[in-house]
C-alpha cells in the first residue's frame, strides 16, 4: 500500500490563505498493489469494490494485470505458491 496523490474527477478543493485563493487539484489517495493467485482475483476485486465504494466520484479504479513470475523470498516458492496465503 502506498500513499499517493491523484485526481479522480472529484470536486477540487478551494482553499484561501490570506487572500490567496487556490484550487487544489490533487487529492490524497491510497494505491494498493495486490498480487494474488488466479482463484483469488475475483474475491479480491469484490472485496475492494465493497470496501472502497462511497458512491461518490473519486472512489477509484481497479486494474487487473497478469504477472509473469512471483517468488516468495523466504521459501523460494514460485508463481502460484508464492502468492497464495499459507495456512499456519
Amino acid at each position, binding site marked *: 500500500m502506498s500513499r499517493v496523490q491523484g*485526481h479522480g474527477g472529484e*470536486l477540487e478543493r*478551494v482553499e484561501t490563505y490570506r487572500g490567496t485563493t487556490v484550487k487544489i*487539484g*490533487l487529492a490524497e489517495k491510497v494505491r494498493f498493489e495486490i498480487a494474488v493467485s488466479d482463484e483469488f482475483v475475483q474475491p479480491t476485486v469484490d472485496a475492494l469494490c465493497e470496501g472502497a465504494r462511497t458512491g461518490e*466520484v473519486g472512489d477509484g479504479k481497479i486494474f487487473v494485470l497478469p504477472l509473469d513470475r512471483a517468488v516468495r523470498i523466504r521459501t523460494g516458492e514460485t508463481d502460484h505458491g508464492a502468492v497464495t496465503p499459507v495456512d499456519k
Partner: protein
Amino acid sequence: MSPPALLAAVSGIDTGDTAWMLIATALVLMMTPALGLFYAGLVRSKNTLNTFMMCIGAIAVAMVTWALVGYSLAFDGTGSLIGGLGYVGLHGVDFAPREGTAIPHLVFMAFQATFCIITVALVSGAVVERMRFGAFLVFAALWSVCVYAVLAHWAFGGGWLQANGTLDFAGGVPVEMGSGFSALAAALVVGARKDYGRQALLPHNAVYVLLGAGLLWFGWFGFNGGSGFSTGNPSVLAFTNTLLTPACTLVVWFGLDLLRGRKVTAIGAATAIVVGCVAITPAGGFISPGWAMLLGGLAALPSYAIIVWRTRTRVDETLDVLAAHGMAGFFGILFIGFFAELSWNGVSNGLFYGNAAQLGDQALAALAGPTYAFIATFVLLKLIGAVMPLRASEHEEALGMDVVQHGEEAYVTGEGAILVFPEDGGTAGVPVADPG
C-alpha cells in the same frame, strides 16, 4: 465616572496587586491558545486547524458575551442563583477597586473574562472532529452565559455555594467541573465520530500535546496565583502549590503507566500535568504544600481510571475533558473538605482539622456543579440542534474539518495547487471531469 478618577490614582488600589493581576490575566489568556495546541496535537492531522480554531473561536465569542452580559450575571450583586444586570455592557466597571480587592474593577473583570474563555474552549474537546464550526460558535455564546456565568456566580460571585461556605479558590466548580460534565453532555448530544470504535483514531502530533501542556502549566500560575487577587499569602500559597501538585501527579502517572503498559508515555505525561493543575485549582490557596503534594498523587488515580474506562465505551468524549477536568476538579473540591487548614488559609479547617461541616459544604458543590452543568448543557445543545445541524455530514467528516469548515489545511504542500485569480470568479468547487 468623575473626571478626577481618570487623572489621579484611585484610593484603595494597591499597585503591586494590580501589577501582578495584569500579568496574571495575560498568563490565563495564553492558556487558551495553549489548550488549542494541546487539543490540536491529540486529533488527526486533517482536523488540526478546526480543533485549534474552536479555542480561538472561544476567545472571540466568550469575550464578547462576557462583556455584554456574562460578567454582570456572574459578578453583580449577591443573588442566590444569578447576579444582576447592573454591569451589562461593562456599565460602571472602571478604575475603582472591585469590592473585596485592591485592584481596579476593570482588571478584575478582565481576569475573570479569561476564565470564561478557557472554560468554553475546554468543552470543545468533547466534540472535535465532527461538530460544525458555526454550531460550535452559537453553542459557545449561549453556554458562556447560561452555564459558565451561572456557575461562576454560585462559586465566586456571591451566589448560594459561596454564601453557604463552599471553598473554591480558582474555579473547581465553574471551570473544571463545569467544563468536564458539560463535555460529557455535549459528547452524548453531538454523538460519536463516525469511525469511533471501528478505526484507531490516533493523536497526530505528541510534541504539540507536550508543548501545549507545558504552556498550560505556565499559564496556570496566573490562573491559580491570580485567584487571590493580590500578592498576599493566598496567592503565594496557590502559586507554589501549582508547582508541587502537578509534579506529584506526574510521578504517580508514570507509575500507573509503568504498571499498565511497562512504558511511561509522553501523552500520558501531558495529561498528568493538566490533571495535577486542575486538582490544585480549587484547593490552591486553602491547603498546605504537603497536602497539595498528596493531592497531586491521589488525583492521578480517578482520572487515570476514567480515561481507561471511557475509551472502552461508546461515549466519544473525544479528548477526555471529563477525566482531566471534571474528575480532577471534583477530587480537588472534595480534598479541601478534608485537608483545608486554617493556619495556612486563614479561612477554614477541613475534616482532618476538626471541621466536618466544611466537607459537607464541599460535597454540596461537588454535587450541584456537575448536575447543573450536565443538564443545562444537554438541554442547550438539544435546543441548538433543533434549529441547526450540530455536526458535519459523514462525507465531510471523512474529508476532514479543516478543508470543509475553514478551506485551509494545516500541512498544505502546495502540490497540485492552481492559483485562482479574483477576476475568474469561481470560488466554488468545480468538477473537472463530467462523471456522467
